[in-house]
């Protein structure tokens, strides 16, 4: 069932398209925000647990450490070309460019999860430890984005100092839940997981359908109300993930990851945060326009990655591994 067309006929993707079409047609279909949030927490707990259980089964390996280090490095480095493009081609000022760049260095949990679904359906399941890589990649880009936005010299100051912000970002709800569930998964192992598998494993794909329905609605509604999204910026919201995905695929292959894991690293690199980073940026760079960075990451990059990016990056990773 691999291949672009097969992906489009997966129920998960079809529900995303349904949500997007409903929002385009201005239907009043809405998932209550409390329920959407609940499903998103469920997905994080489930993906964390699953990754942890796999690591408990397979044990720690050098690959794991390499993947983690690569993830951290990518999250630090990827904002740099993005910042350059955003200021030059996108005509953004430093503050907005830094804020947006942080989003592209960081990662999107649901893009990752959807990628894992697609890869697994295609016979290339990524390794369980990639969940930890996901969690590790959330934060470094935020620091990098701030440095870019402010210039090295100027310090943060204000009520919320740099260290306070770092603490808040590292303890962001999604990071804590992902990492916590990952560790719980390691602690309970396959045996402990069996009891809770009906909720966290059997239910996973169905819940993901409902969540992507919601994200389809949210993304397109944001697109319609996006005032500051210029055409060059919309173009960059597609071009930057293409670059980042390519870098991720190359790095993943170079450090010797299996095809599935290298594809997952590519997907992570290409994905843009819309949970941890927007909240952090609103606090640390209040002058930056949230309408802009959410429109780019959520309304353009996310749908692009779900519909086109994921099969592309995974094909690339497969191609590279053949070299």
């Amino acid at each position: 069932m691999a291949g672009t067309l097969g992906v489009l006929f997966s129920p998960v993707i079809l529900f995303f398209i349904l949500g997007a079409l409903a929002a385009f047609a201005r239907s009043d279909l809405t998932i209550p925000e409390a329920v959407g949030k609940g499903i998103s927490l469920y997905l994080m707990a489930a993906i964390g647990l699953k990754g942890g259980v796999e690591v408990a089964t397979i044990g720690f390996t050098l690959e794991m450490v390499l993947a983690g280090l690569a993830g951290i490095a990518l999250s630090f480095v990827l904002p740099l070309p993005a910042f350059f493009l955003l200021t030059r081609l996108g005509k953004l000022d430093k503050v907005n460019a830094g804020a947006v760049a942080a989003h592209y260095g960081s990662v999107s949990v649901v893009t990752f999860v959807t990628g894992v679904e697609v890869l697994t359906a295609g016979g290339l399941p990524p390794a369980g430890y990639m969940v930890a890589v996901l969690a590790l990649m959330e934060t470094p880009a935020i620091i990098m984005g701030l440095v870019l936005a402010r210039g090295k010299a100027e310090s943060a100051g204000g009520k919320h100092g740099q260290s306070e912000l770092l603490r808040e970002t590292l303890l962001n709800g999604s990071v804590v839940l992902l990492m916590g569930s990952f560790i719980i998964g390691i602690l309970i192992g396959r045996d402990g997981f069996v009891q809770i598998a009906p909720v966290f494993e059997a239910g996973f794909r169905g819940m993901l359908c409902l969540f992507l329905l919601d994200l389809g609605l949210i993304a397109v509604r944001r697109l319609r109300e996006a005032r500051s999204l210029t055409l060059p910026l919309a173009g960059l919201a597609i071009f930057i993930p293409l670059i980042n995905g390519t870098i991720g695929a190359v790095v993943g292959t170079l450090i010797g990851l299996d095809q599935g894991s290298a594809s997952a690293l590519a997907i992570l690199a290409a994905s843009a945060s819309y949970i941890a980073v927007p909240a952090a940026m609103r606090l640390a760079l209040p002058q930056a326009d949230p309408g802009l960075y959410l429109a780019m990451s959520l309304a353009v990059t996310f749908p692009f990655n779900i519909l086109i990016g994921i099969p592309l990056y995974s094909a690339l990773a497969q191609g590279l591994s053949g070299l």
Partner: protein
Amino acid sequence: MSISATQRVRIEILVDAPLVRLVVATAKEAGVTGYTLVRALGGEGAGGAWREDRVTGAADTKMIFLSVTTTEVADQLVEAFTPLLDSHRLIVWRSMVEVIRSEKF
């Protein structure tokens, strides 16, 4: 007008969810001893429309910070927030109210 009523100021601040902690801290420094938060559902302004969103980082989901306080504290509050109004896109208004247990405010 009524039993032991006293004049106080009711101040309302529209604030983005991620900035609530900052607003509360600033208000307390200005001398506010009590406040209540109310969740807003959606709205529209110069920066476009938004609607409640707890799924994403919700960087533009707004709450209403509501405090009834003395004129002095309200003035200090406004002064403390003035530098933040533009940079943090806060919206503030105030009006006079009568309170009953004036020692509470």
